[in-house]
C-alpha cells in the first residue's frame, strides 16, 4: 500500500533517489538544493540507503564524479542550482554525449548578480543545448515521480541519456505538500536493476569520447540529436507504464480546461497551479480560456504542442526567464518558432515575469491573459512584454 505523507520537495527528491536505490551520490551543497543532499547524506550515514556518498570540492567535481561512477556501472544521482549548475556546465556535455544516464535534481534559482537565492528559470534554460532530457515539475508529487521515471527513461537501452528534473527553488524545495510514496516492492517492479550495455571493465577495454576530426564530429552530433529526439517515444511508454503501476499518468504537455478554448496560456513549473485558479475564474465568467503546462522541455515536444493548440487562435507564453537582448524568453521564442510554419493563423505572445522568486498572484495571471489578448489585437511596441515589473 502506498502512503500519503507530508514532504517538502527536497525530501521528496531524496526519497525518490533512495527508493530508486542509487549506488552513488556525488554533490556539493548550494541553496536551495541543500536539503536534498543533506537528507541523502543522512540516509547513507544511518544505513537507510546503501550507496557511496562522495563529498566533492565543487560542482565541476560533482558532475565529473557522477560521470565516472556512471561509466563504472553505478546508478548515479546529484542535485544543484544556479551558480553551482554553471560551474558543472562543461561536464554536462560530456555526460550526455557519453550516454551516461545520471539523474540530477536542479532546484531552479535566478542567476547572480544581483546576489540572490530565489526561483526562476535563468539557470535551467542555459542547459537546453547540453543534450540532457529536461523535465519540469509542477508540485512535489511530480518531483518524486519524475525522478523515479527519469531513471527508467534515461537508463532505457534505446536512450542512455542523463535527465534533469527541475523543481522551483523554495516554492517546491522548501514547501511541504502531501506526497504519495509507493511501496518499495512497487518501485522495484517499475524500475529494474541498473544495467548499462557499455560499462568500463578492465577485462573488456572500451574508449569513451576519443578525439574526433572534422570528418566525423558532425555525424556524431547528428546521431546524438536524433537519439535525444527519439527518447520522447520512450518517455511516453515509460509514463504510461508508470501510470499503470502507480495510478498517475504524465504527458509532455498537460492540458487544463482547453476544451473549446480560443485563448491558451502556457506555463511551466509551480506557478502553473496559480495559473489554473486564474483559468477557473475566467471560465466561471464564461471566457473561453485554457492552460497548457510544459513538462518536457528537452526533447521539445513539437507534436504535442501542435495538438494542444489545434483549436486555439492565441497562445500566451509566460516565461520565468529573461533572455537579455534576445527574442523573448526561451520557451516563447521556441514555441513561436515551432508554430511559425505550421500555424499562420495563431498569434503567439510572450510575457516575462516572476523573476527571482517574485510572486505572481491569480489576479496577475488574469491580467496576463487580458494583456495578451490586447497585444494580439493591437500589437505591442516591445518584442515581448513583462508582467509585474515596476516602471
Amino acid at each position: 500500500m502506498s502512503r500519503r505523507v507530508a514532504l517538502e520537495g527536497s525530501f521528496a527528491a531524496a526519497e525518490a533517489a533512495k527508493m530508486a536505490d542509487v549506488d552513488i551520490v556525488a554533490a556539493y551543497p548550494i541553496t536551495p538544493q541543500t536539503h536534498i543532499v543533506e537528507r541523502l547524506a543522512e540516509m547513507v550515514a544511518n544505513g537507510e540507503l546503501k550507496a557511496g556518498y562522495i563529498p566533492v570540492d565543487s560542482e565541476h567535481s560533482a558532475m565529473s564524479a557522477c560521470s565516472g561512477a556512471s561509466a563504472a556501472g553505478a546508478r548515479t544521482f546529484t542535485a544543484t542550482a544556479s551558480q553551482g549548475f554553471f560551474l558543472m556546465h562543461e561536464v554536462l556535455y560530456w555526460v550526455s554525449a557519453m550516454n551516461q544516464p545520471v539523474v540530477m535534481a536542479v532546484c531552479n534559482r535566478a542567476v547572480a548578480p544581483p546576489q540572490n537565492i530565489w526561483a526562476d528559470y535563468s539557470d535551467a534554460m542555459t542547459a537546453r543545448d547540453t543534450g540532457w532530457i529536461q523535465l519540469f515539475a509542477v508540485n512535489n508529487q511530480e518531483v518524486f515521480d519524475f525522478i523515479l521515471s527519469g531513471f527508467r527513461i534515461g537508463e532505457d537501452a534505446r536512450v542512455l541519456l542523463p535527465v534533469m528534473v527541475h523543481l522551483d527553488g523554495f516554492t517546491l524545495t522548501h514547501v511541504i505538500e502531501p506526497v504519495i510514496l509507493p511501496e518499495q516492492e512497487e518501485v522495484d517492479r517499475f524500475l529494474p536493476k541498473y544495467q548499462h550495455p557499455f560499462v568500463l571493465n578492465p577485462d573488456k577495454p572500451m574508449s569513451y569520447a576519443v578525439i574526433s576530426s572534422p570528418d566525423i564530429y558532425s555525424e556524431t552530433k547528428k546521431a546524438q540529436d536524433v537519439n535525444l529526439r527519439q527518447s520522447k517515444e520512450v518517455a511516453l511508454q515509460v509514463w504510461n507504464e508508470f501510470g499503470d503501476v502507480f495510478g498517475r499518468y504524465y504527458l509532455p504537455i498537460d492540458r487544463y480546461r482547453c476544451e473549446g478554448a480560443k485563448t491558451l496560456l502556457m506555463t511551466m513549473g509551480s506557478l502553473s497551479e496559480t495559473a489554473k485558479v486564474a483559468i477557473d475564474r475566467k471560465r466561471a465568467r464564461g471566457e473561453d480560456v485554457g492552460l497548457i503546462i510544459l513538462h518536457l522541455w528537452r526533447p521539445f515536444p513539437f507534436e504535442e504542442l501542435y495538438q494542444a493548440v489545434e483549436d486555439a487562435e492565441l497562445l500566451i507564453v509566460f516565461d520565468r526567464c529573461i533572455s537579455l537582448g534576445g527574442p523573448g524568453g526561451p520557451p516563447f521564442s521556441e514555441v513561436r518558432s515551432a508554430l511559425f510554419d505550421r500555424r499562420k493563423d495563431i498569434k503567439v505572445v510572450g510575457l516575462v515575469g516572476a523573476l527571482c522568486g517574485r510572486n505572481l498572484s491569480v489576479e496577475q495571471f488574469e491580467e496576463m491573459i487580458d494583456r495578451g489578448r490586447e497585444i494580439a489585437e493591437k500589437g505591442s511596441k516591445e518584442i515581448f512584454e513583462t508582467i509585474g515589473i515596476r516602471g
Partner: protein
Amino acid sequence: MADKESKTVSELTWQDMRFGNIYTKPGSAVRLKTGDWRTERPVVDKEKCNKCGLCWLYCPDSALTPLEDGYYEPDLDYCKGCGICSHVCPKEAITMIEEEEI
C-alpha cells in the same frame, strides 16, 4: 556499433554513430591518420645514427618504427612533425625538413 568499428572514418554515416562516443574495441586511433597535420618531416641520416633508440622512446605518437637492421624509420601516416626525435637525438642524426622542400 559493429559498423562504426569496422568502417574507415570517411565511410561512417550518422546512422553508424548511435552512442557514437563509445568505442567498444581498443585501437581506434590507428584509423585516424594524423600525418597530414605535419609541416616538417624528420629525416634520418643513417651515417650518424648509432641505433640508441631514444627517438623511438620519446616519440609521443609511437610514430617511429624499429627496423630489422636496428635503425628507426618515421611512420609518416602518424608523425605530426613535432621534432622531439630530432631534439633528443644525441648524434644529431635526425633533421627536420620543411614538407614543402620535399
